[in-house]
């Protein structure tokens, strides 16, 4: 029982990342009709916003410590962050410790700006072009973005730990009435799940309850009509792209303590998030979220040793197998609308 609850938690956690990326992807599909292969790169850029922010906080000047030597036997150079000079070492180090959550504040404007720039500068000119051209240009962009990151940060993963307070795990099972030690779960993963739920709820509320959201939803349903009504839908779509970029970026920022970010993490997630979006159904936001969590949970269960003993290698293919079964039984995914990206 504990094992099952643990895997459900793991599934929800994996699902959170899938759902957040897929949400932005399907928003762009739905509103703009653009196949955005650079969406994974946005997730990666978000993660590197956290890295950059943390590096900025640790901008240092060098002090030579004559008492110690480095590996070549020269006097050791010690880096002292400027922030220590400003706030003192105690406060300074705790600010650095909290770099990841703090970098949300940094990532939101950066990602929105990036998203808007991308839409205005590039994507906008591809609305009327065939999907094939959209794929080529966004794929090119994704490569360029990740190569730029590689140039500055290298290919190696960069450890970006959570604040000290959230490192490690706690006994989640006791809260549910299980024996101690039964369900131990990392703090940060729960935070990630709650954060994802919060963002998803926020996006839905925004689309549901604001006039802006109403127009965008109408635009998703029928772009022509809304344009005829004289509403400047293009401008709203630009903002929508910015929001989608920010959602992907935030998903990336918060993901960094779970897995150290590297430059190709976006590509790793790209294919999976496409599968999630399509399984959820093109143009359906709830579908994307549902499919994200569903695939996350199924993947978690498929990786259990008990399952693998019966079906060796099922963990390798489970996501794709589920995708095939879903698409064959439900022609437009779980909640897809007719006619979206079917030709």
């Amino acid at each position, binding site marked *: 029982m504990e094992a099952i609850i643990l895997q459900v938690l793991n599934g929800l956690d994996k699902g959170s990342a899938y759902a957040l990326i897929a949400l932005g992807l399907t928003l762009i599909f739905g509103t703009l009709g653009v196949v955005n292969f650079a969406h994974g790169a946005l997730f990666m850029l978000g993660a590197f916003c956290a890295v950059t922010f943390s590096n900025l906080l640790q901008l240092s000047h060098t002090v030579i410590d004559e008492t110690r030597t480095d590996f070549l036997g020269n006097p050791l150079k010690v880096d002292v962050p400027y922030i220590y000079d400003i706030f003192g070492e105690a406060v300074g180090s705790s600010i650095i410790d909290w770099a990841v959550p703090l970098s949300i504040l940094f990532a939101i404007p950066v990602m929105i700006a990036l998203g808007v720039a991308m839409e205005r500068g*590039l994507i906008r000119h591809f609305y009327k072009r065939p999907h094939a051209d959209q794929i080529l240009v966004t794929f*090119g*962009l994704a490569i*360029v973005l990740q*190569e730029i990151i590689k*140039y500055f940060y290298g290919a190696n993963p960069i450890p970006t730990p959570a604040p000290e307070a959230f490192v490690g795990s706690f006994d989640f099972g006791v809260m549910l009435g299980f024996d101690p030690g039964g369900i131990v779960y990392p703090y940060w993963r729960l935070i990630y799940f709650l954060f994802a739920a919060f963002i998803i709820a926020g996006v839905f509320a925004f689309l549901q309850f604001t006039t802006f959201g109403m127009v965008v939803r109408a635009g998703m349903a029928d772009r022509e009509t809304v344009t005829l009504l004289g509403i400047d839908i293009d401008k709203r779509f630009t903002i929508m792209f910015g929001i989608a970029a920010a959602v992907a970026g935030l998903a990336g920022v918060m993901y960094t303590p779970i897995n150290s970010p590297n430059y190709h993490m976006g590509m790793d997630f790209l294919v999976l998030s496409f599968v999630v979006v399509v399984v959820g159904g*093109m143009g359906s936001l709830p579908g994307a979220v549902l499919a994200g969590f569903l695939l996350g949970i199924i993947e978690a269960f498929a990786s259990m040793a008990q399952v693998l003993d019966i079906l060796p290698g099922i963990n390798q*293919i489970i996501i794709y197998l589920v995708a095939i079964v879903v*698409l064959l039984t439900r022609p437009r995914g779980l909640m897809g609308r007719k006619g979206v990206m079917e030709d």
Partner: protein
Amino acid sequence: MTDQTTDTIPAATTSASPKAGGGLLGLTKKDFGLFLLVIALTMLAPFLLNPFPENSAMAQFNAGYPDLMQRFVIFGIFAIGFNILFGLTGYLSFGHAAFLGVGSYAGIWAMKLLTLNVIPSILASMLVAGLFATLVGFISLRRSGIYFSILTLAFAMMSFALAYSVLTPITGGETGMQLQYFDPRILDAALEPGQTPRANLFGLDMATSTNLYFGNWVFTLNVGYYIAAFCMLIAFYLSIRIFRSPFGMMLRAVKSNQNRLNYTGISPKPYTLAAFVISGMYAGLAGGLLVAMDTQVGAERMFWTASGEVVLMTILGGAGTLIGPVLGAGFIKYFENIVSKINEATLHTWFAFLPDGLEDVVVAMIYPFVGKGWHLTLGLLFMAVVIFLPGGLVQGGQKLVGLFRRKKADDKTASSHTPAE
């Protein structure tokens, strides 16, 4: 009117008589001309691709060595086949590398079990890839649009994952599958212990090369390349025939309007399935040739990036055009193999003529774009091509030709739509 028809698809015939239009091999004059051009280019490739003398600084850009020339034509075949599906029917398969991979495995097993002769191996590749494509196509073609793309992607990723791990005994997994001297090979005489098994065509070793020296120039004529090139010419010829055939017209009709096709008494599904299987067999041929040229198979050739690569090749060159996919394939393979090999030391030798400080600056500016940064250049070029040449490289070529012809081009008004070459 007659002038117009030469510029439009595919009616290279005139209104006077359907038999008119010249050309040989059942091709129209214009197609035959294109075919001749491709023949000339492939046959002369060892010379054309080695324009720079050995030991010169520019020799780095020479691409006329067997491995890369083989890759050009083999991936050309792959892209030609993909274009039959994507360019004609508009169905975007995101899992075509699976057929290439499955074909390769079939090819190497034919060499392990039957004979080192490449012909049975290539036939086995095409057959097995065709069968696999029939299965995948039959299931995936139940859906269209992006749903179809994801279904094909899912099949390919499952193939990759299984080949890399669970199926290691038959695929070699991570280390790939290679020939051994002790493989059974029932049709061949046994090899000496330690002897290297080499793919051959009735005793003619694929690796056999002959060098022509001409001053400082060296040109390598390689048996394997010419065999692969011969296969590509056949593949290209068949693709022209398919494009111009009733079948090809139906495939374009599928892309244009499936609804009308249904109400014209034609069932689109068998047409798309046939196109899918044909392009799967092209992929199988490419896979078989890869094995014939270089007797090993790695599972990575089925990874989704490999499927994505052929999509990019086709779009980059010009989807739906005859020659575009081949150009796209050459373009990407050139970058992968030539630009990736330019390192800092090479750059310094190029710019050694500059004053020291300036040399360092120039090298520092170029270095991020070559060598380990070759992906960056490739990405930038993808974007540049699609932004400035919406019809791919073929359109770029046409624009270039158009510039030269502008003077006498007053009466050519009908080329508003994308031509087929």
